[in-house]
């Protein structure tokens, strides 16, 4: 896997690769089908440090180091258990692991809110689907999407990619971002829309 690392305006390196999806997705499929622990170790050694860095690094302090380590354990435990549901025809390993990670984070946050009425049989994965059922038409599209989005992220102006990173990596809502950056809510919204338009323009040609 030949990755070229490039840095965008905020010190977040985004891999501009041609083939990242295949190796990791193949390994993850192996983990699911054969419960292959060696394949799982390789997946772990690659993704676990990324999951930690997503939440705790010089540029993001969404979680402290301990909480980030705890989250890594939860996410990779779920990855092991849910690997039989992974379908590389529908998503790449990184996108699928992102959705598991997002759901673990939502769960973690819920558990920390003591006053929440948490009594419900509706699981996080019922609301945030980890295996998005795409229309068959869209399967062809998604592989191109992933590459184009990684490339597109690098090309975004810093003020736009910065907001996307805050939303995804710090889990902040638009209004939280607007308060933090002292920007009008409308500005945050329009930067997100502009960014999405630029990313989508790369594959809706």
């Amino acid at each position: 896997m030949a990755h070229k690392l490039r840095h965008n305006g905020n010190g977040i390196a985004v891999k501009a690769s041609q083939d990242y999806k295949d190796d990791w997705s193949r390994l993850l499929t192996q983990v699911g089908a054969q419960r292959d622990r060696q394949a799982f170790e390789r997946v772990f050694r690659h993704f676990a440090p990324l999951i930690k860095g997503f939440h705790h690094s010089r540029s993001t302090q969404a979680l402290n180091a301990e909480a980030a380590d705890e989250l890594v354990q939860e996410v990779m435990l779920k990855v092991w258990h849910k690997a039989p549901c992974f379908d590389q025809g529908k998503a790449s390993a990184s996108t699928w692991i992102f959705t598991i990670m997002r759901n673990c984070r939502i769960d973690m946050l819920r558990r920390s809110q003591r006053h929440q009425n948490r009594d419900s049989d509706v699981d996080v994965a019922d609301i945030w689907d980890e295996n998005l059922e795409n229309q068959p038409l869209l399967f062809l599209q998604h592989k191109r999407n992933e590459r184009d989005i990684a490339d597109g992220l690098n090309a975004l102006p810093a003020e736009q990619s910065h907001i996307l990173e805050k939303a995804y990596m710090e889990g902040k809502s638009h209004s939280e971002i607007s308060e933090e950056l002292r920007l009008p809510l409308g500005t945050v919204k329009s930067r997100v829309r502009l960014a999405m338009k630029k990313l989508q323009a790369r594959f809706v040609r």
Partner: protein
Amino acid sequence: MIRHHPDENLLLEYASGSLARGPSLVVAAHVQMCADCRSQLSTLNNLGGSLLNGSPAQPLQANAFERLMERISQIPEKIIHKSEDTPTPVPVGREPAMDHLPKVLNKLLASNPNRRWKTLTRNLQMCRLKSGQRDYEVAFHCLRSGSGLPKHDHRGQEFALVLHGSFSDHNGIYGRGDFVLREPGQVHRPIATQDMDCLCFSAVAAPVSLTGIRGLFLNPLIPFRPG
């Protein structure tokens, strides 16, 4: 055909995990009915995957992998079915037609076996649901065909999804699968279309106040009860 969708900003908050549980239920139900939004969501998930790929790798605690494998060996291997069964909710009392619902709503109904439908007016029934949160009132509403609700405004945001039939207000017509977002202060007077009762699912952030003289009578009937 679905004509009204959550906007990109709302979808991104949902995809990145910052949208609260109440509105997320409505967005999730819409996405399960709407191929366009599923496609957008898959792009937004790809964006998350790309950010994960590009995030700065950080060293883990010593023995992180071994600790995990230790944990895994202590848990019996769960059998996970690829196509998870969605429970079919058992209808209660004289419930409006609840077939062809998105699976997240079937799950929600199944987890509320003791739900009750309340008659709020001659034409309006409501069923509150427990959904594991306290910031939004999550409910089904059923408006009888051809009838209208009193004019009311929304003190808090209302996220709604049409499941059966259709209704109209001064902004347009909303049919099956349409997503409706009402901001605080917006006054509207929805009327169900003639041919069918209109069933909606919604999450409301604060009490819906009824304006006008009929509202005086109706307001005590619709206390805000989140959950």
